[in-house]
């Protein structure tokens, strides 16, 4: 039985308290209580740190994460493209533990009892909470692509849509591919994690082929009617930089896969590739449904935008790619970080018996590499609208790069360094 060790928290709290300065100007009493955070990605790590920082160590936070380190999805396409290594996109949880006094538990949550306010761990035992945060990311809907249901098929036809072992494996498949081969990437219907990500990946694989395997081709099989994100900038990059290498096919939903022959099966067609990379449709990470939270379209969690609290299950806040997005809001790491801060502020108010901030703001920036140096961005700002009870994109704000440029290539890497630190150190 795993029990909360209050002594450990006091020790950790003292460490954080010793270096704490006055953040903001909370007039009332310091919030207290225990918050359990499930999932230590862009959303979960951020909410854990900000709860500790903003409560000045008053709130105890346990973060349950199955991986020993954070491996970043943003920038991971540069590992697939050959510009970066796994080490470059791996960040430790030590800062959360040692600097902020977050109790980080490497484990999996197998059940949530929303009535009793407990979570059950895979390794055994349970934890009780005052408020629960789920930041579970996405899980794949394998039923939609029956040929990929087996572990064997999944190890051959990769998604590499969760950074980690699959990122390395896809890079190896590309390195092993003969010159003159074909790489095909299949994109599911929106909404999916990281809207511009598949097009960025196509660019970076094409960049690798152009430099190392010039007879090879990149085929984009897009289930959508058109390029989902940054279309003019991506199509210009394909025409200018990768003419004769990248071929884009819209309305090309992959319905099934013959993993043995690397064949994608479309509605009226089949496509055989040397390296087949299928991103299956996805939904909120499985623990969301297991928690008894009601899902929209059996896929995404509906949240109250003042608190990120589930509209069906009080006491459980949900962040990041798992949620049913507000209008035009992308599923991105940057946005998950913003959700984490919104939730942290709301949870501290709620633990203190106060209403959450009635006018929250979140914003997004997303950088995509179109070659090893040139980058294009998309940005947006979303303000809470009481009439529609959601955050709405601000008209006239946001937008995309005027053109691909090297300056934003440097900015994109600077963004990564800062957001990793904002989450974890």
């Amino acid at each position, binding site marked *: 039985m795993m029990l909360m060790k209050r002594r450990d928290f006091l020790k950790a709290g003292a460490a954080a308290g010793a270096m704490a300065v006055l953040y903001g100007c909370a007039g009332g009493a310091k919030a207290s209580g225990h918050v359990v955070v499930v999932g230590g990605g862009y959303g979960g790590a951020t909410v854990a740190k900000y709860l500790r920082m903003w409560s000045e160590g008053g709130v105890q936070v346990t973060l349950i994460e199955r991986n020993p380190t954070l491996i970043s999805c943003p920038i991971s396409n540069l590992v697939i493209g050959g510009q970066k290594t796994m080490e470059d996109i791996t960040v430790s949880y030590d800062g959360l533990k040692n600097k902020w006094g977050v109790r980080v538990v490497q484990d999996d949550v197998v059940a949530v009892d929303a009535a009793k306010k407990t979570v059950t761990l895979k390794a055994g035992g349970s934890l009780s909470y005052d408020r629960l945060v789920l930041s579970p990311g996405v899980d794949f809907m394998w039923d939609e692509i029956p040929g990929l249901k087996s572990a064997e098929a999944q190890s051959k036809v990769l998604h590499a849509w969760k950074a980690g072992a699959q990122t390395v494996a896809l890079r190896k498949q590309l390195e092993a591919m003969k010159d003159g081969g074909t790489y095909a990437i299949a994109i599911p219907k929106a909404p999916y994690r990281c809207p511009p990500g598949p097009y960025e990946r196509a660019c970076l694989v094409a960049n690798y082929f152009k430099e190392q395997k010039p007879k090879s081709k990149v085929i984009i099989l897009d289930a959508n009617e058109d390029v989902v994100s940054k279309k003019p900038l991506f199509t210009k990059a394909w025409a200018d930089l990768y003419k004769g290498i990248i071929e884009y096919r819209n309305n090309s939903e992959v319905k099934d896969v013959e993993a043995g022959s690397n064949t994608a099966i479309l509605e009226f067609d089949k496509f055989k590739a040397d390296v087949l990379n299928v991103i299956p449709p996805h939904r909120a990470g499985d623990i969301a449904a297991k928690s008894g939270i009601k899902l929209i379209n059996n896929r995404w969690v509906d949240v109250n935008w003042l608190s990120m609290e589930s509209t069906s299950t009080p006491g459980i806040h949900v962040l990041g790619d798992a949620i049913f997005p507000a209008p035009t809001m992308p599923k991105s790491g940057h946005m998950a970080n913003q959700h984490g801060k919104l939730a942290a502020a709301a949870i501290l108010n709620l633990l203190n018996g106060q209403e959450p901030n009635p006018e929250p703001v979140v914003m997004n920036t997303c950088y995509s590499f179109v070659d090893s140096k040139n980058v294009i961005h998309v940005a947006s700002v979303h303000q809470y609208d009481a009439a529609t009870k959601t955050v709405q994109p601000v008209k006239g704000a946001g937008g995309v790069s005027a053109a691909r440029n090297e300056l934003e290539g440097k*900015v994109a890497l600077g963004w990564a360094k800062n957001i990793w630190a904002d989450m974890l150190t």
Partner: protein
Amino acid sequence: MKLFVPIATLCLLVVSSTSQAADPNLARSLAATCANCHGTNGNAIKGSGMDALAGMDKAKILQKLADFKSGDKPATIMHQISKGYTEAQLDLIATYFAAQK
């Protein structure tokens, strides 16, 4: 021009400059939306190429934001982001960062 706004003044500002239902930590929470790129509490990673806003003069921050909005200051992205916030919100954000170390 004051270079540093004491915390007490900041609190007063937050309470007085927004609607009566405003959250006492509104400035802090608004400023946190900038931290992804500009660092927690405006402490950007050195050498990352991002402006560190912690301790920057409030008037200087507001002038930069105004120039981004008007287009007077060339930008890769800030001309688009600055337009997403109201003048009152930018004032709160600038006040908050100016008071950070």
